[in-house]
């Protein structure tokens, strides 16, 4: 479970990013956070991940900090580390023995189709492959909560759909809580059982929309999907 209570965030330079944000995401649910650009979506995610401290309110996670993984925009990979080194990094930092981290990384890389790229550098991979490396690195930590900041936004439409299906499978198989920040209405509806719509800055919850049909790959082509997209669209305040 993730609970945000009266969260507010004002940066030292006076920028008010969030104001009185409240929501509850049940354990094991998937949640999309959507809103106009600059509405503090990323700030909210950093606060949930414990990287930024809110200036007001608090977050309750039904998990230890080490059970939370965050995937940043533009994959958050380190260009000076190879694919393998990137994937094991989180395990290395947590002091997992070398043989154990090797075992975990190799099996994940195999699952994600990255095995033959172990010694490549991120720059040598396509965007979709780089994103897979980002997923592998986060998943290696076996998180209970997976936070993602626009993970698919810089990919082409086809790669994007493939990875959306991948994320859906991942969520269904692992039973983890997934929070996805996105600026795509379709992506928010396809992946979020709970959709949180934020207002322009300072970010504030405009609406929380339930989206119970999530979980089926064919949802995209169903009438209910389009109805839900329309509902979300109507609730998104215009960007400034």
């Amino acid at each position, binding site marked *: 479970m993730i609970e945000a209570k009266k969260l507010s965030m004002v940066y030292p330079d006076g920028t008010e990013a969030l104001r009185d944000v409240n929501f509850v995401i049940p354990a094991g649910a998937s949640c999309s956070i959507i809103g106009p650009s600059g509405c503090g979506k990323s700030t909210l995610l950093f606060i949930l991940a414990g*990287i930024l401290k809110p200036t007001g309110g608090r977050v309750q996670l039904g998990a230890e900090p080490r059970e*939370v993984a965050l995937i*940043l925009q533009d994959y958050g990979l*380190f260009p000076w*580390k190879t694919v393998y080194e990137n994937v094991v*990094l989180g395990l290395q*930092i*947590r002091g997992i023995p070398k043989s154990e981290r090797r075992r975990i990384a190799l099996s994940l890389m195999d699952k994600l189709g990255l095995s033959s790229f172990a010694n490549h*550098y991120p720059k040598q991979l396509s965007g979709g492959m780089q994103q897979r490396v980002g997923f592998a690195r986060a998943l290696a*930590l076996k998180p209970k909560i997976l936070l993602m900041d626009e993970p698919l936004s810089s990919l082409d439409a086809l790669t994007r759909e493939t990875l959306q299906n991948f994320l859906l499978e991942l969520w269904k198989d692992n039973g983890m809580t997934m929070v996805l920040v996105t600026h795509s209405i379709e992506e928010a509806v396809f992946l979020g059982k709970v959709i949180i719509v934020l207002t322009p800055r300072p970010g504030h919850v405009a609406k929380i929309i339930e989206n119970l049909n999530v979980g089926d790959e064919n949802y995209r082509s169903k009438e209910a999907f389009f109805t839900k997209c329309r509902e979300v669209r109507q609730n998104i305040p215009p960007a400034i």
Partner: protein
Amino acid sequence: MPRGQAEHPTSYIIAALLLIALWYLASLLLASPELPAPPTVFYAFIAGIRADLGYHILISTFRVVYGIALAGSFAVPLGLLCYINRVDKYTAPVIYLLYPIPHIVLLPLIILLFGIGDLSKIVLIAIIVFFQILVTTRDAARNLSTNYIYSLLSLGATAKDIYRHVILPACLPKILTAMRISVGTSIAVLFFVESFATEKGLGYMIMYAWSRMDYPALYASMVAMALLGLCLYLILECVEKRLCAWIYI
């Protein structure tokens, strides 16, 4: 290949031959003992190696390498620490006031403090090169994207992890480039500090040969100094290619 260089060794050989040919041509046109032809200098170089030139090369190499290493061992950690705002707030103004001053004029003070032996020569080289490496390292550390830091923090990193996995590897190419550039500077300073109060080193050899008007020996010493700089430069480039393979892909 964003930072590609001429990969083929033949292009370097052609360039070297071209420069030697120009030198040859100039020596023929000038027809003066003050600019001997390349073969004359080559024989003087061989004769020098058979005598004591090798010893002087070794002394000079020791002074330069020691100077650069000493500078780097202070400049790199301090520059990287400037990533922290609080450190930079106090360090940056000091660097920017001291950097543009010609440090070579500190020579009398350094001789006063460290004597006229090897130490004062090494310290002067180190001081001059220190600022070059420090400024570059500091700028690299300051311009690091906070996204990398956030990305690592999200994996549960400590301050030590951040230095080890992000700040040092991200700044390393800039550090090694700064060190490569500092080779040229340090050789110039080497000549200056070896041109008096010593009877060892290539700078001394140059001054001594010049005073005897032994031009082939003078140029042979100059060639040795040039080769010293070139070798150090190439070694640092190899180190960079090895440690920072990721920027060459």
